[in-house]
């Protein structure tokens, strides 16, 4: 009967277990402590002392700069030229085609990148999980983790060389050797609007997929071997075990990873900044690079840049709220 789509024993048991735990948690709401605050503060004083540097860091680098948000209502071209303009920056913002182009690009690039990276990380995790030879598995893991530690600047330089249309370009040379393309038909991976995004996703997969497998491998290692043994005794083959035990066990982690990363999609900058060029701006410009471009020019308006940054933050904030809501629905608890 194993493999029948109706019978899913572990899923059923897991769900039951989770429901029971949740009910218990809801029933028993124990207060943290009955002692007065001053006593608790004194008792845990050294923890608070240890937390102080973190608090100072947060205040100095995260909260104090928030005061700069007020400049979105100003024209701020230099220290001597700060003028109140009300909502003019926002009116100007929405009338600029490059802004909307950057906004759409940000969403497209980030979401596709996120889905691809997660998908690849899951696939590789599953493959690694199936490896029997522990040494080979460790070596493979180390190799695929390494690109994560390479800076984006170095990555861009290396790929610019590898993807060159000239003799130094490894990929085009290989494609020519294999007869896939003819001489003179070399693919401009980084300087053509048709190929840039594909190349961008590929480089991202190469760089971040290995690192992304860590969390999935941790989940996989947490699955009880008893389940696999029981399934094996029942005659389940490898595919069956993967389909009926591994996949369902990973599902929650995949959703969690997706939700957590979805909240960060507006932060796309470095990878695009180092790989973009004048030819592909239309398909590569994202909000963060747009903000950089309008800020670091000979005649910046910091007020306008702040307005763009604020808009980006608002969208990011909205995404966090949506993700929090989705997380509560899916996992039973929020992300914030």
């Amino acid at each position, binding site marked *: 009967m194993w493999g029948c789509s109706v019978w899913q024993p572990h899923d059923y048991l897991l769900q039951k277990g989770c429901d029971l735990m949740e009910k218990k948690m809801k029933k028993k709401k124990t207060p943290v402590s009955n002692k007065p605050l001053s006593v608790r503060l004194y008792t845990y004083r050294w923890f608070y002392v240890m937390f102080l540097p973190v608090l100072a860091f947060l205040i100095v680098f995260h909260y104090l700069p928030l005061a700069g948000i007020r400049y979105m209502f100003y024209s*701020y*071209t*230099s*220290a*001597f*030229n*700060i003028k109140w303009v009300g909502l003019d920056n926002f009116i100007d913002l929405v009338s*600029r*085609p*490059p802004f909307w182009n950057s906004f759409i690009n940000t969403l497209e690039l980030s979401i596709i990148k996120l889905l691809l990276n997660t998908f690849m990380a899951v696939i590789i995790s599953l493959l690694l999980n199936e490896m029997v030879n522990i040494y080979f598995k460790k070596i493979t893991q180390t190799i695929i983790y390494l690109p994560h530690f390479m800076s984006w600047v170095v990555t861009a330089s290396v790929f*610019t060389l590898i993807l*060159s*249309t*000239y*003799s130094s370009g490894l990929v085009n040379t290989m494609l020519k050797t294999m007869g896939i393309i003819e001489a003179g038909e070399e693919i*401009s991976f*980084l*300087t*053509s*609007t048709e190929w840039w995004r594909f190349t961008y996703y590929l480089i991202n997969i190469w760089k971040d997929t290995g690192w992304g497998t860590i969390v999935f491998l941790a989940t996989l290692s947490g699955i009880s071997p008893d389940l696999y043994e029981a399934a094996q005794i029942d005659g389940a083959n490898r595919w069956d075990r993967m389909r009926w035990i591994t996949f369902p066990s990973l599902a929650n982690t995949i959703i969690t990873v997706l939700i957590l990363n979805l909240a960060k999609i507006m932060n796309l900058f470095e990878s695009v900044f180092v790989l973009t*060029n*004048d*030819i*592909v*701006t*239309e398909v590569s410009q994202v909000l963060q690079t747009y903000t950089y*471009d*309008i*800020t*670091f*020019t*000979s*005649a*910046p*308006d*910091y007020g306008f840049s702040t307005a763009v940054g604020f808009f980006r933050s608002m969208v990011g904030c909205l995404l966090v709220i949506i993700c929090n809501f989705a997380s509560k629905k899916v996992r039973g608890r929020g992300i914030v």
Partner: protein
Amino acid sequence: MRKTWKKLLALGLAATMVAGMTACGGKKAAELDKLTILVDNTVVNTLNGQAQFEAGLEELMGIDIEIIQPDHSGYYDTVGQTFANPDTTQWPDIVLLGSTYYATYASQGLLADLTEIWEKSDLKASGVIADEKTITDYAIDGKIYGIAPARGNGCMTYVKQSWLDKAGITKVPTTYAEYTAMLDAFVALSPDGYAITSPGLVNNEAPYVNYLPEFFQSAYPDFYQKEDGTWVDGFSEQAMKDALGRLIDAYNNGWIDKEFATNKTSTCRDKFYADKCGVFTYWAGTWAATLSDKLIAAGLDSELVAMKPIDEVGQYIERYSPVWAITSACENPEQAFDLFFGTMLDGSKGQVLWTFGAEDVHWSKKAEDVVVGSGDSTKTYTYGEGEFHFKANLETGDSQYKKNHIDPVLSIAKFKDGEDVSNAQMDPRASAAADIFFSNCTIAPKIVSNDTMSKYQSAIMSLRIELVSQVAAGTISIEDAYARYNDEQGANIQAILDSLNNK
């Protein structure tokens, strides 16, 4: 009695006010005890003996100097952030600015007006400045806000003699037809199938088109003032559309490096040194010798032909030089001017420091062997006692220094008798290239700035750069490019033209 008191009190107050006003009027600007200088890497960096250079300046000026030198590529990011900081005590006293930045910051009142200071200065009276026109040319609305110690220089086209020989070309091109014929021949010789490399097609900084003059010819992709005084958008003119047509030809025929969009200046130089191409348009003067030396280091034939501009180009473009300006935050601009420019252009020891660097660190007259390079490419140059020579680069060791900040070929100040440590023994390759350039160049269109330009100019320029690249690479047609240009920026371009023409 009460009235008398009142009178006395009124008199006392009036006297106090008068005394106060007198004190204000006669108050002297605070004496500077330190001079902070913000500069890019056109001055020797910390790995190249900046400490010795700074010590030399401090000795001559008799004041503490602080040189702030951010990363070269992020220099203008730092400058922008500095001028955005309302706490002016954080501003430097002196800053080096490219022409576009200079015009913008001057129009925003961030730079001290040096017009009167210059007129009354000992520097002007000294007669050391041989080229006062370069100083007055940088005036904005009649006021001088910055001093360029050297002419702007510009780019000229260098052709490898070895490639000409291989292609059997005996006559250096003088027309566009001859030039493209040469490029055609070079494409066949190139291991990667292109004849000329370039870091982008249009630069961010004026004069924008200096790396491919033969293709741009008379086109200028920015606002400029015509002879009749009216301002026009050069990018919208027919000359620019024709230039785009030539760039399409250049790309399709493989004349230009198809990786222009991902090239940096250093990448292009490396490609030239690696013999990937036979033509390179780069800075005149000292760079002619540097390019040649790098070819020697790479084991290649180093002979370069510095081309005169082809007939269709007419004249190369000399850029407006970066200028040194005193910021509005400087407490005593007059003293800063005398100390800084009075030393930099003193025709004596100060000028030696800024031109050649520190003695026995960057240059020397002692008898010695200067060893450059490593391994098989090691070269030893022997100099006798009293013979001026540059020392080996402290950071890389692969070549000798060529200059410090001021290019001696381009300097606006002449050395006083017996003060030129080099005895004007400039590298003949550099002098020859500079001679050709300055005999065949015209100054770039003047850069101006106002509030409207400040608001829209960077977005317009970014779009122009993007469109030129896309048209050349065949991503969009010339017609579509102009449709997008007018659609996205037409209103802003008109606003700028109105602001300039209705001034």
